[in-house]
């Protein structure tokens, strides 16, 4: 059995654009639309959302009837460790303070590569933390607390 050819990448891209358009459009409907003379806060976004849905639809339709390139490898491990790193920094920079927050952030990020061994990762994080503290906190004088209120000292 042969399935009709379709470009899966564009299929997903089309659906993604349409979904985004619908989401923004739905949100915009909750805003005052106004008239074209005095446009309300919802007018321009609604027009754009509609446009996005149309574009997504055309991308979707054109995805059928031709073969596309495969998606390729996906950096699952990368996503698992790279994306939480800034989130962790944001959550703890005030409570733990700049130094410990940065140390853990670097440590988390370093785990994204399969090639990184535990000991070098630790050494790298220490080095980055010391250098960054010297440059940003002491050198540039950015107003970060080096150790935050969550720590006993």
């Amino acid at each position, binding site marked *: 059995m042969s399935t009709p050819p379709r470009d899966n990448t564009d299929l997903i*891209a089309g659906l993604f654009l349409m979904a985004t358009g619908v989401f923004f459009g739905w949100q915009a409907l909750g805003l005052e639309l106004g008239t074209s003379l005095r446009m309300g806060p919802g007018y321009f976004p609604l027009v754009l959302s509609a446009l996005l849905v149309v574009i997504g639809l055309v991308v979707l339709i054109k995805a059928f009837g031709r073969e596309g390139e495969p998606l390729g490898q996906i950096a699952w491990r990368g996503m698992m460790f790279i994306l939480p790193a800034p989130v962790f920094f944001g959550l703890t*920079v005030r409570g733990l303070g700049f130094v410990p927050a940065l140390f853990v952030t670097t440590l988390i990020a370093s785990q994204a590569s399969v090639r990184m061994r535990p000991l070098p990762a630790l050494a*790298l994080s220490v080095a980055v933390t010391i250098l960054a503290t010297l440059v940003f906190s002491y050198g540039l004088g950015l107003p970060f607390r080096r150790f935050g209120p969550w720590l006993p000292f």
Partner: protein
Amino acid sequence: MDLLSNLALGFGVATSLANLAFCLIGVILGTLIGVLPGIGATATIAMLLPITFQLEPVSSLIMLAGIYYGAQYGGSTTAILINMPGESSSAVTAIDGYQMARKGRAGTALATAAIGSFFAGTVATFLVAIFAPPLTAVALKFGAAEYFSLMVMGLVMSVALAHGSVLKALGMVVLGLLLGLVGTDIYTGAPRFTMGITQFSDGLNFVAVAVGVFGIAEILRNLEDEHDREVMTRTINRLFPTREELRAMIGPILRGTGIGSVLGILPGGGAILASFASYTVEKKLSRTPEEFGHGALAGVAGPESANNAGAQTSFIPLLTLGIPANPVMALMIGAMIIQGIVPGPNVVTEQPELFWGIVASMWIGNLMLVVLNLPLIGLWVKLLTVPYFVLFPIIMAMCSIGVYSVASNPYDLFAVAFFGLLGYVLSKLRCEPAPLLLGFVLGPLLEENLRRAMILSRGDPTTFVTRPISLGLLLASLAVLALVFLPQIRKRRDEVFTETDA
């Protein structure tokens, strides 16, 4: 003469010890990050942008400009040495530059790129100085309708010059515009698309979006497939070109500069087009076209000059109209706004030191690049041998500090993660991030001018076509859009981009 006294003012500002130092630091940092494989100029600037915020407006923009040139040169270095261009504009350099390196002429290729860039930069700086002031006079006559139409044209051009599907690029522009509208509505104060998070009422942080979509997405892409790179280190020959080689590069450099200067002014990313156009011209004019693709000197000299000239002249629309010509200029606008400068025609008259200081620092930055890079090339090559898994945790740490330092807002860091994911998903779906960023920056401006124009015309939408300048701009964008959808041009455009990919 006006021009001379203005340039003197500019050089006075740019050569102050502090500004020279910032320019130098910018060039070094830019090159340092720019040579990291796979990271192009846009990602480099997005990552380093926050460092400049603590400085005064002039110094910060001078440093940023330095970062830009440095990043671009760093990108060419990686293109030549490991055939890994970070950005499509240096992809053309990689074609012949890498072949030269494989034949043991890496030193010559690097020197050619540096000399070509410096010459093109010098000429283009003068062009900016000559053409920017009269253009601001025109720009001052622009009303809301003209601005709206001009931005539409800029966005359309960015779509036309984007890699891959025109339709998806169009979708990216619209998505960018929508993301730009997140925050408080300027006329009514109503919060829009903030999900009830008050921290987003000032809009999404521009730096967070740029770092996420360009920087983090780039890192994730590089982590997909970790393999060893072949660095052309042992084979770097003498740097200084022979008299013969110098003579051979004069023509390509001159032509490249001309092509780049003209195309760089176009809104929507002329530098990519410029380097490709120059490559095509050199190949056509060459007595030995078969050498191209196998290490032709002209194939490095021409595109590199064109690329750099275009990078320089793309400051013209930014400084005169406040319209970014490419994602890098969009980053510049973001930086200016954070510094409290409203980009546009008023910058020249109200802040002449700023304007001329930047113009002068462009040239100084280019000079520093040549002086610095030729002797430091050994160091950059060493950097290329540092394994990637050591580099990216450092980059992540810098990004986190940088983004947080802008507004001390933890939500900006959550936004970085979100936009990093979005950027990665989009790149997997083969959607170009450049039009998205351009849309994001222009979104609020576009809406504001649209609403103002409609109020001024008492709700009559024909205002956009009855005002001649506005009509001209709209017709031009319509023509561009029609062209890219024409089957013949489309085929040609596909060929262009496939050849650059090769």
